[in-house]
């Protein structure tokens, strides 16, 4: 799990204090450091490592009516990899990731660059208002959009009817994925924008002021100076989006209440694992699904990081 080059702050600018003291004070300092990290790692092991291992352990068993839990080897994994409901949910989230994440991050990047260029009036207000949905719980966001989507009394349908477009059905099986993409986009553009904006503000001005004096346009500067400079921050938002997408839960489970036909119990992998465990009582199989999902997310994140690294290396090779 240590394969996170983008996040590895190996070369921090600050070095630890020089160590020219006697070995007793050195030992005292090491002891203090261990005591400082101890509470975090106690909870870390208890709440992350132990459940992870336990989940792996559970997934190797099968619950039989007679005989209780019996060791089943990889049976659950074989079943999961042949389970069309699980595979379809992964595919659905893959589609979600390919369509929604570029829209969300593209919008966030555009907003961050626009705010950083300071060419618009009321930038501060824009920044805060766009960020605001982040403070809204996913449950409330989904409830709210659920009403807004409503075909009878939702304001979108009201406006659409008033201008003669008829009544759009956002909650039909064909449209629900898009409607969910919209909710997630609404929730997280601001958050990603703030991460990118903060990174933009930290670019040393000299990097592009020379280009500005030379008369390079804002688009040119954004493309060839600013975006490359904040690539680590963009990568961070991509990784967070991968994790977020494949873990979607509140959105499908609340939309299920108002659109039961469109949201199946395996609409997202996470929602499927929940239904397997708590509705079907198939704990061992659910553990295998959750474990596979975790592995899948780790692999996708790793591939994304690797490809960015390779691209950077290629670019540096040509430069």
């Amino acid at each position, binding site marked *: 799990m240590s394969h996170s080059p983008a996040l590895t702050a190996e070369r921090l600018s600050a070095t630890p*204090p020089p160590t020219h003291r006697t070995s007793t004070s050195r030992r005292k300092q090491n002891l203090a*450091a261990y005591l400082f990290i101890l509470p975090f790692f106690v909870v870390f092991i208890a709440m992350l490592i132990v459940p992870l291992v336990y989940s792996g352990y559970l997934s190797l068993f099968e619950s039989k009516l007679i005989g209780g839990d019996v060791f089943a080897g990889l049976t659950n994994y074989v079943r999961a990899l042949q389970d069309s409901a699980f595979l379809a949910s992964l595919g659905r989230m893959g589609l979600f990731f390919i369509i929604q994440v570029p829209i969300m991050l593209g919008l966030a990047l555009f907003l961050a660059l626009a705010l950083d260029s300071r*060419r618009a009036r009321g930038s501060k207000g824009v920044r805060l208002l766009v960020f605001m949905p982040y403070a809204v719980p996913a449950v409330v966001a989904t409830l*709210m959009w659920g009403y807004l989507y409503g075909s009878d009394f939702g304001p979108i349908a009201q406006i659409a009817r008033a201008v003669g477009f008829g009544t759009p059905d956002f909650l039909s099986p064909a449209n629900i994925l898009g409607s969910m993409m919209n909710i997630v986009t609404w929730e997280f553009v601001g958050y990603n924008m703030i991460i990118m904006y903060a990174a933009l503000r930290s670019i040393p001005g000299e990097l592009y002021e020379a280009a500005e004096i030379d008369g390079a346009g804002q688009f040119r500067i954004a493309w060839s100076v600013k975006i490359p400079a904040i690539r680590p921050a963009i990568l961070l938002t991509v990784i967070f989006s991968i994790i977020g997408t494949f873990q979607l839960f509140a959105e499908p489970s609340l939309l299920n209440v108002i659109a039961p036909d469109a949201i199946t119990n395996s609409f997202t992998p996470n929602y499927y694992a929940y239904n397997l465990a708590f509705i079907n009582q198939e704990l061992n199989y659910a553990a295998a699904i959750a474990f596979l999902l975790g592995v899948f997310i780790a692999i996708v994140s790793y591939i994304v990081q690797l490809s960015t690294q390779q691209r950077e290396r290629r670019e540096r090779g040509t430069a």
Partner: protein
Amino acid sequence: MTSIDTRAAVTVGAATGSRRAKRGYVPERRRSLLLTVLLWLLVLYFVLPLWWLLVSATKDNAALFSTFGLWFGGDFSLLENLQTLFTIRDGIFARWLLNTVLYSVASAAGATLLATMAGYAFAKYDFPGSKALFSVTLGAIMIPLTALALPTYLLFSQAGLTDTPWAIIIPSLVTPFGVYLMRVYAADAIPNDLIEAARVDGAGEFRIFWQVGLRLLGPGLVTVFLFSLVATWNNYFLPLIMLNTSELYPITVGLAQIQAAASAGGGSQALFSTVTTGSFVAVLPLIIAFLFLQRYWQSGLATGSVKG
């Protein structure tokens, strides 16, 4: 492994102060009308749903379904709605609100303390194993927390801790990202000379942390605190599986429950205005917290994302 860190590290020192002020050349900024219009149109997309929520909180159930959604209509029923909201089922909504505050403040305070101590140690001490342990922490950022929810639930139920506040608070104490952020922040917010000077003066390591370290970590602390606060405040999955007693629910699970009841019971339509008013009340505290503390979390985030 890559050079992103060194490249990004160039301006971290400036991240805590006002960066733009340090730039010598300030070009004439031409305002662009087109960009201004475009940005504010985009803002509409983000604000209109919240505007709708505000407007809806002032409508009674009939007006909710008979008037135009984005403008006031019918009687002004905000006070009646609030009254209903806080009196249904013997005032359980207030209970949910209090639970949410309790769970998220306790989780955020604990998570911030743990992350700060660990981040400080990683930044300021060179102890055997620090690199390996920090790598493990970073790797854990990738672990999807929901993959852990099911086994955590089973472990808690064996320990008899499900259906108690601990089942929400303890799992929320782990924030690998918080440790990462605090390490980056502590690395340049606390000068090594200051620590050395305190040592020469005979201060113990813990006193240095409490009296020198914490004082300089303000914005970093606020950032980690706010973002863990939001994570717990907005969490739905964990409390949904951990809690059975509705007196223990946080507001997210509670609202989902009233919504389900409102959708299921055709006769109890009066509940819809309660759901919208409840949603409105649920989002207010966090929005206010973010507005008032923006100076801190924005500069705190700046440092973290630079190194990200």
